[in-house]
């Protein structure tokens, strides 16, 4: 397994954010997102504070605004559904640009887009500064069930292998002049997915045998567990705590 494997999301760097232990960053992400979601939608200033906090984290991690914006486009289609809310929402209606829109729906759409975008940006900062194996190790240090982290570990290790096999199947199909595009051609893709499952299963068995032959006894060794200092916690939690304060002030106000 080469370094760099399955790390397409990771941006190499040596910033303070990169060096923070993964479990500390995970806790920070969850606290931040919860604070953002708890903020009442009418308190626009609180979202501005949150946006400034995420930007500060991205800047501290040496991630450019263009990089973060580019990554965020992945999440855009999921937020697009929110645009329907003003059209189908209930309650009082207002005329905006000649459209008869629901006031509640407009606020709802704003809430989903603002909160969704902030959550997206925060998790982009996490994945861009944390290698995936560290993230899984961080999850297990946060006492995630061993079975879950073990399965997740195999999943991320073999994700690119399996996706690569699927891609090669499609290339092989295209090379033979078959490019399924219409509904009635779906069964060809489904059949190759079936073959992919059998290959995945057999690969899983081979992987297990290979591990046993190398001395695997039901548990992967954890190497170089990083020492977590209280300064790590202070640094990582500073931002989410600011967001929490903003959320609390917004709720009270």
């Amino acid at each position, binding site marked *: 397994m080469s370094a760099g494997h399955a790390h397409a999301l990771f941006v190499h760097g040596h910033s303070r954010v990169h060096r923070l232990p993964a479990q500390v960053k995970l806790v920070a992400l969850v606290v931040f997102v919860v604070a953002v979601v708890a903020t009442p939608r009418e308190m626009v200033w609180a979202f501005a504070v949150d946006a400034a906090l995420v930007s500060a984290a991205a800047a501290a991690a040496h991630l450019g605004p263009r990089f973060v914006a580019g990554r965020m486009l992945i999440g855009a289609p999921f937020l697009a559904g929110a645009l329907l809310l003003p059209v189908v929402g209930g309650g009082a209606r207002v005329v905006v640009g000649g459209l008869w829109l629901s006031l509640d729906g407009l606020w709802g759409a704003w809430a989903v887009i603002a909160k969704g975008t902030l959550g997206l940006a925060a998790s982009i900062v996490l994945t861009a500064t944390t290698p995936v194996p560290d993230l899984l190790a961080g999850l297990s240090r946060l006492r995630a069930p061993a079975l879950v982290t073990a399965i997740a570990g195999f999943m*991320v290790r073999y994700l690119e292998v399996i996706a690569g096999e699927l891609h090669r199947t499609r290339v092989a199909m295209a090379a033979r002049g078959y490019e399924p595009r219409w509904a009635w051609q779906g069964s060809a893709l*489904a059949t190759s997915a079936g073959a992919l499952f059998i290959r995945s299963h057999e690969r899983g068995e081979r992987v297990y045998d290979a591990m046993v032959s190398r001395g695997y006894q039901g548990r992967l060794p954890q190497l170089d567990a990083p020492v977590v200092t209280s300064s790590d916690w202070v640094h990582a939690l500073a931002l989410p705590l600011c967001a929490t304060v903003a959320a609390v002030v917004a709720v009270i106000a």
Partner: protein
Amino acid sequence: MHIPDGYINLATSAGAGVTAAGGVGAILRRVGRTLNERQIPVAGLAAAFVFAVQLLNFPIAAGTSGHLLGGALVAILLGPWVGVIVLSVVVLLQALLFADGGVSALGLNVLNMGLIAVLVAWLVFRAVTAVLPKTAASVVSAAAVAAWASVVAASGGFVAEYALGGAGRVPVSTVFGAMVGVHALIGIGEGLITASVLAAVLAVRPDLVHGARVLGVRRAVAVPLDRRAVTAFVLAGLTSALLLVVVVAPRASSAPDALERIAAAEGNSGPGQTSLAAGSPLAHYGVAGVADAGVGTIVAGVIGLVATFGAGGAVLLVSSRRAARTARSEPTLP
């Protein structure tokens, strides 16, 4: 189907998180006793498989997602308990690594796509196979029905969560018509693909299919999807989608109305009295709901169905063209 942050309020998300953690935790304890360690790499590879298949846009499923959810597939291939864990791991990593579904909505997404989809699929699969002969063809047809039901049930989970704490106060009947109606259509694609994948696996390695093992179906028989069966399944799916939008959706509004009446009678939550209730679609719901419950909902639902079908179809057309083009232009050696 992946809910982003901010769609559902924090109280509902937290409640769903506790429910999901409790359910998955109970299953983990149950599976931990029976799962041998050889199965862990296999489950991990199955999770990678589900992830890869979700990346694949099947040209058959027109809709907001446009890909397989895989709840029924893992339930029947791996069994319901391992299936729940595998799909929950997939949803967890999608949220953490790919920002697909919000971090605060993780409990909601695990509940809908991990627990509800997989368990409903397994229950329907067992119910359908109980009345059919124990053959490979029965496994495949039951899988199609189970996959349809799992997608509809997962979207039903979303509607319930939206009713409890959704943003934008859309009448519940409209949300029901749009989500459940559209997913009754998406479910047709899910059902056909699940059936085709299972037929392919059954033809080569029937021993790998948990659902077939449970039923004692061992003989490897290639079961291509029969054209008449496909037509019947599609027609049944379309009919139920229309029924859900036209008949059930307008009635869905009666439940929150009753809830609001109870709340008002007890006098602890008048419309818009507390900040907690003000953000929920239940507050003030009666007025908007009753006024346009009948025709409005049906029209909205049907417009939703048509719009989703059109938009989904367009996206799929473009994406499959692009996929075909990149497949052509990349000279990767197999």
